[in-house]
């Protein structure tokens, strides 16, 4: 029997704000334990929370970017539970009136893992629907030692969005693409840095399997401890295989929470809770409801960025780059911004796209460390366009410019220092061509016999004679003329 998986994701995203959700402590990763704290985020009795305006606006902005319905009115609730990461014994969250409902994440081709992009089974531009996005406070971070745990409240109270998807994904690759595309949008909107290693984006996975064609969902398991997008993919692959094996041998899946072990590459059952979660939500009496129609929504609308799909279309028309190049450029807002600066003064914008995507990314895939001033791309491209250097020389200049440039020379200075000039003087070119023909009797004969490729051998000779400074295109033309006249 053939089985299919049903996958839903719950993603927690820390918002990028100056301060925490309900107090003025700094919202910053790291720091000495318990130094970014105050009575409010420590959960002392009797303290009063006040919501952070920017956190509310950024959550609405996220909802707008993901095509959600933004609630006109919503409220906060208390989620009651006992755990040392939340000493006031409840987390302020949103229960039945979240800020955003509905919406979707579109799985663009480049969001999929590289090896899945070519597969026929990959559903490009699939829409994974969202259930909701709500705003809450993060809890303290704990570390566990022998017999005891240590609690650090620097993270406690960080504004946290919970983004819940429908169970619309069917493969680990779709879950991977969902997270990649979601992360891209969050960074586009500057709502979060969404760095999984820093816990700024955290993901819980729900997965079940069912015979293909069956409508009813199977029993689901939850997977925790996923610290990277590739871990999500790998854990799902493992867990789906495990569940299919159990079911196809006639067994039943227990509803349980499983922990991903990244080193072993497997999931294992966590302690099964005897009591189902009963958080006894009730409205947070210390907070007033939010009314988004009184300015909050319009403030978020002003912050609405150009989204990846719109940017892609604009780059293609405005710069004449290919659709594929436009997709790659728009996959990261930093890359697109850099390209626009790099191409600004270029006569041939496509050349800049080639340099950036083919040559630069081949050397260095991390754009955050790019040390080359963006206008240098235009400068180099224009030299090539004007025929002052040939493409082989341009590649050499480019290599020096990005990875071996201790003097921080501009492309023009490098060209000068290397003595690169492109010889277009036909007198000199003709002399070299004559010499190449005289020395290359065999290639000449081949060419005459109809082997057009033999021309390249002669061309290579001329380039050698010119020490690489001849204009290859002109050389080709002269050689052809001369050979025809023979």
């Amino acid at each position, binding site marked *: 029997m053939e089985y299919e998986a049903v996958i839903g994701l719950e993603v927690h995203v820390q918002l990028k704000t100056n*301060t925490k959700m309900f107090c*003025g*402590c700094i919202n910053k990763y790291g720091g000495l334990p*318990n*130094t970014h704290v105050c009575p409010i985020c420590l959960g002392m009795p009797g303290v009063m929370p006040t919501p952070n305006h920017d956190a509310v606006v950024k959550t609405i902005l996220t909802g707008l970017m993901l095509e959600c319905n933004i609630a006109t009115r919503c409220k906060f609730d208390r989620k009651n539970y006992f755990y040392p990461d939340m000493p006031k014994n409840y987390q302020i969250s949103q229960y039945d009136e979240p800020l955003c409902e509905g919406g979707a994440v579109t799985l663009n081709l480049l969001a999929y893992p590289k090896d899945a992009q070519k597969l026929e089974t990959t559903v490009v531009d699939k829409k994974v629907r969202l259930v909701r996005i709500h705003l809450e406070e993060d809890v303290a971070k704990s570390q566990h030692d022998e017999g005891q745990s240590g609690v650090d409240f620097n993270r406690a109270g960080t504004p946290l969005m919970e983004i819940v998807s429908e169970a619309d994904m069917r493969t680990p690759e779709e879950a991977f693409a969902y997270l990649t595309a979601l992360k891209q949008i969050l960074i586009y909107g500057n709502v979060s840095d969404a760095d999984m290693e820093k816990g700024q984006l955290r993901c819980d996975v729900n997965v079940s399997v069912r015979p293909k064609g069956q409508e009813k969902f199977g029993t689901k398991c939850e997977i925790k401890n996923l610290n990277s997008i590739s871990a999500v993919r790998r854990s799902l692959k493992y867990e789906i295989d495990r569940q299919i094996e159990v079911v196809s041998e006639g067994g039943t899946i227990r509803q349980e929470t499983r922990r991903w072990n990244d080193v072993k590459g497997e999931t294992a059952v966590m302690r099964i809770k005897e009591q189902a979660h009963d958080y006894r939500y009730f409205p947070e009496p210390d907070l007033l409801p*939010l009314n988004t129609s009184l300015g*909050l929504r319009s403030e978020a609308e002003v912050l609405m960025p150009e989204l990846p799909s719109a940017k892609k279309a604009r780059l293609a028309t405005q710069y004449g780059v290919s659709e594929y190049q436009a997709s790659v450029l728009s996959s990261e807002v930093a890359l697109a911004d850099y390209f626009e600066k790099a191409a600004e003064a270029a006569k041939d914008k496509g050349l800049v796209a080639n340099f950036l995507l083919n040559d630069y990314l081949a050397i260095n895939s991390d754009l955050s460390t790019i040390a080359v001033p963006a206008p240098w791309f235009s400068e180099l491209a224009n030299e090539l366009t004007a025929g002052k250097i040939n493409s082989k020389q341009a590649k050499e200049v480019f290599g020096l410019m990005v990875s071996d440039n201790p003097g921080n020379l501009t492309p023009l200075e490098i060209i000068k220092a290397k003595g690169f000039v492109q010889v277009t003087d036909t007198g000199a070119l003709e002399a070299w061509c004559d010499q190449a023909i005289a020395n290359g009797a065999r290639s000449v004969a081949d060419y005459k016999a109809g082997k057009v490729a033999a021309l390249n051998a002669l061309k290579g000779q001329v380039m050698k004679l010119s020490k690489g400074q001849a204009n290859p295109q002109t050389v080709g033309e002269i050689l052809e003329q001369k050979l025809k006249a023979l």
Partner: protein
Amino acid sequence: MSSQGIDVQYVADLARLRLSADEVATFQKQLSDILGYVDQLQKVDVSSVEAITASAPTSNNLRTDELKPSISAEEALANAPVQSDNLFIVPRMVE
């Protein structure tokens, strides 16, 4: 939850309260009475009334995203029964 159906022992477990059988009986009656009042309130037709969560008709009491001073780790940990390396030490939490 209906007033008859309240499971005092279950609620006590959730709230980490240890109750004797007598206490369970006492609270069973008291909580049932309170929920009885709520049952009465729920009979009122409020379909035309908008929900409020505060007595004053107001909303959006928000704070600008501006930094305020935090307290020192020393102050934060002053009441901690056990601490180590700036951390609150608690019995090991089981995952």
